[in-house]
């Protein structure tokens, strides 16, 4: 039988309404909605600050690596490569935070060919993104949601297009 979508559900008497635990903060007062917005902005700023701190520390460590830093002739990492990594992460997190999706900060690891790995290893998923030293080379990534082989991703595309792919995948598996 076709469901009548316009049919009203019977009302629950107000005395039987239940408080939902996650909405305990909201008592019908609009001021609380403003507080929530302020809280959201505050959290975003805090996270941006944390991200900047992590970038600063990583930059210091990685820029200190001199030529042959792996003992097999690895070139130094270019600052520009690192900046592209940070920019990519900022793009990803700004969208995820806006959508209230919390994902830990990944490891940022120098690779002996002058590229940089962005590496997430969490209980839920693993994602490895390799940002090449040359802007013209393609970004290569591989990810899997643990226990869900159908959600595996292997992708290669230009730097300017990659954030969309990553954000889409992270949202999908979240």
């Amino acid at each position, binding site marked *: 039988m076709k469901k009548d979508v316009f049919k009203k559900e019977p009302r629950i008497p107000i005395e039987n309404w239940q408080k939902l635990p996650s909405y305990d903060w909201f008592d019908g007062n609009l001021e609380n909605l403003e507080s929530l917005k302020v809280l959201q902005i505050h959290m975003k700023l805090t996270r941006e600050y944390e991200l900047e701190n992590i970038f600063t520390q990583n930059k210091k460590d990685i820029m200190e690596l001199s030529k042959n830093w792996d003992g097999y*002739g690895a*070139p130094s990492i270019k600052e520009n490569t690192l900046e592209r990594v940070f920019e990519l992460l900022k793009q990803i997190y700004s969208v995820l935070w806006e959508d209230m999706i919390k994902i830990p900060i990944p490891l940022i690891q120098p*690779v002996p060919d002058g590229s940089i790995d962005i*590496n997430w290893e969490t209980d839920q998923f693993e994602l*490895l993104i390799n940002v090449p030293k040359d802007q013209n080379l393609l970004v290569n990534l591989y990810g899997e949601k643990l226990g869900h082989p159908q959600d595996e991703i292997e992708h290669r595309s230009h730097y300017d297009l990659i954030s969309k792919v990553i954000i889409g995948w992270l949202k999908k598996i979240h």
Partner: protein
Amino acid sequence: MAQENPLNWEKEPFENYLDEHSLYRGIHRNIWIKWPILENIQPHFFYSDNAEEGLSMDWSKYSTPEDTLKRLREPNLETNGIIDLNVEKLRNCIEENSFPLIIVHDPIKKATKILPINRAHTLIHGINGANKAKIRRIVSKIAEWAPEMKPIIRQSND
């Protein structure tokens, strides 16, 4: 016993790499020093600037992990640890994922400025910019530190 002449060393076929054998590679402190857990081998160990021409490893038929360490410029565990890739696990990993990896015996018969003579020297071919994320992620999962060759982290007083 007369010493063998390296010029007589022959390249051996892949069939000679037995399941119980290992491939060793020295990993510099700059790679592992920031790892959150030292036992959790990270994917960036499995690459080099010239990896597309072949990634150098040492075959356990002709090398111990100690030999591999000794061949490095800084042969101490504070600077280098030795990774062990078991041949059976690597072979399975290649087959299961259809990785285009080829293991080639490449003995170094004459020392160069960089490399000493080395009968164990082996190259892994087939890793490139297009596949390196997946290959490195999966190979890092079968890699472990060779026995007694886990690096030593000295606590800095700074």
